[in-house]
């Protein structure tokens, strides 16, 4: 199984996903898109965990469990975040982060 894909490919994929996520996080103004970008970042980290675990320590399981843990946290985070976003939308009828500035100054 190791003959197939070299480790670097996983890492390159994860890096690309990470920076796509960062880019999306920084440039988007829509809260949903920002949330999606955060998910991308988290998943790129998951790929890293799994790849390293598989290639460097094949007989251990910490990497898998860690990524499971991250997925669980990400899921709950998404639930909370979407609840917040819905409330924001109800109040401001927008989910653009720049328009939600009532508490500023």
């Amino acid at each position, binding site marked *: 199984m190791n003959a197939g894909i070299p480790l670097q490919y996983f890492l390159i994929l994860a890096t690309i996903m990470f920076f796509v996520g960062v880019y999306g996080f920084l440039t988007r103004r829509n809260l949903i898109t920002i949330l999606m970008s955060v998910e991308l970042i988290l998943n790129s980290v998951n790929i890293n965990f799994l790849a390293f675990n598989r290639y460097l320590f094949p007989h251990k399981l910490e990497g898998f469990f860690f990524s499971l843990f991250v997925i669980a946290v990400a899921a709950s985070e998404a639930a909370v975040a979407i609840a917040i976003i819905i409330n924001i939308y109800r109040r401001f009828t927008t989910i653009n982060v*720049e328009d939600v500035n009532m508490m500023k100054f």
Partner: protein
Amino acid sequence: MINYTYTVWIPLVPFLIFILLGLAGHRLKPRLSGLIGTSGLAVITVLSYITAWLYFFSGEKIDNTFQKITAFNITWLQFTDKLHIDLGVLLDPISVMMLIVISTVSFMVHIYSLGYMKGEKGFERYFAFLSLFSFSMIGLVLATNIFQMYIFWELVGISSYLLIGFYYQKPSAVRAAKKAFIVTRFADLGFLIGILLLSFNTKTFDFLTLTDPGEPAIAQGGGIAFMGLSVMTWSMILVYMGGVGKSAMFPFHIWLPDAMEGPTPVSALIHAATMVVAGVYLVARMFPVYAFSAPAALDVVAYVGAFSSLFAAIIACTQTDIKRVLAYSTISQIGYMMLALGVSGYGGHEGLGYMASMFHLFTHAMFKALLFLGAGAIIHAVHSNYMTDMGGLRKYLPVTHLTFLIACLTIAGIPPFSGFFSKDEILAAAFHNNKFLFAVEYAVAGLTAFYMFRLYFNVFWGEETHYPKTPHEAPATMTIPLIVLAFGAAISGFIPFNKLVTSDGKAFETEIEWIIAVPSVLIGLLGIGTAYILYGKKTTIPDRLAATFKYTYKWAYNKFYIDEIYLFVTKKIIFRYISEPVAWFDRHIVDGTMNAIASVTQVVSFRIRGFQSGQIQKYTFVFISGVILLVLIFIYLWP
């Protein structure tokens, strides 16, 4: 040895009444607070007469000389062992005499005010201020040292300010109060500098050491000279400047006529009988210093006095507001007192001028207070200050008429009234020392008689004006003080001042010098006669005279334009060339620096405020940029 410690209550009683009426007066009935103030004054009048009796007639004299007694003394501010400011009570002939003057006139004015101020708003405030004034004036004359005198000097200034501005809703009264306060403040600046110079050179504030001819203190500082005069002379001239301001001598006289905006009893008490003679009292108090170490300053005193008396007498001849005539007359009479001090020497018959000055101070207090209270009764009846609204009042105001006539005869120097004796002594003192000043004062005596009887004939004789309401005589509370003061004015000339109040405390002999007395009575009669011809009946002579000397008359009527000159100097010169540049500097340079600092901060903060946008994305961007930067540094630049 008589214990005089009780004299400390003479200033304290009015002070306590001031506190009481000032704090609780508005809760009391007006009549009650008036009675409290008046009864307080009755107490101190009794105490003052007891003190005078004990001091002059049963006190022991050492070497036939009245002693200066420190009846009470506390160290108030101790700076160093030697330098300390005391508060206390000093009894000597002039302070005891002043106690009599102040308490008598003040008591009379209190009684009079009960009638005059009846129903006025702020009745209790008025009595509180009167008590404050009595306290400060008594503290001033009883001062044991020059600094205490200065403190009370300012206190009488503030009470005068408060009382002139008593009708504080009248803009003219407010202006007059401010003017009186500011003008005297200028003079007091000189006084303070004088005190500092004097005490620096003599190393003492204390009157006892300062005025004892045997002490070395008064010979100090004579050697150092500045602009041809010794330091001592300069300091005494500066001290005299304070007296010039308070006594309304030229060139600081401008506040006194305006001060007539205050209630008339206040004018009688403060601006005729007591406070304005504080300058005379100051010179008399410091007299040994003047006589021994600053004779040049004494000349200044004499000439300022003589000039003011002539100047004010001329203005008084043209004024039509009766209170202003009396105000200028006050300036003129105080000029007399100053002149008498200025020509006096120290000790024995040489000190005739000193004695004459104190004598005139005493008689003047009586007759001028009487004149003002009489004027108050007239104003009360006619409701106008102007002579042109009056005439033929003798039928309606018999008591006022009679007492006013006595006062006029007194001030004109007609025997046997008191003014004759005191003025005669002054003229004699001037005659023996300075013939020029004697001539001036002789002319002033004639002018005095003229303008007083001009007033008298215009008010009580002349053509009867049609009055809207028939004038009626004042109530008893007002006529009784008039009668008492008329009595005092008439007979106080027989008090033997040469035995009691002299420059060195020793009695000396004087007699009426007929060569001076007869001409002075004659010129007084001449003045009265002229006034009768001009104003006794309705004639056109005064108007024709005014028309003939049109410019002179106008000049004098407008008080020689002194007020205008002051306004010109302050507004056009000082304000424009000093105050405005200073204000510009303050507004633009000082304030400008502050505003610049503030606005730079504001602009910068507006610029950088955007960084704290509250948007996580921007923060994250900075954070990630930083991380990337650090990563690059660690990878490529770290050794």
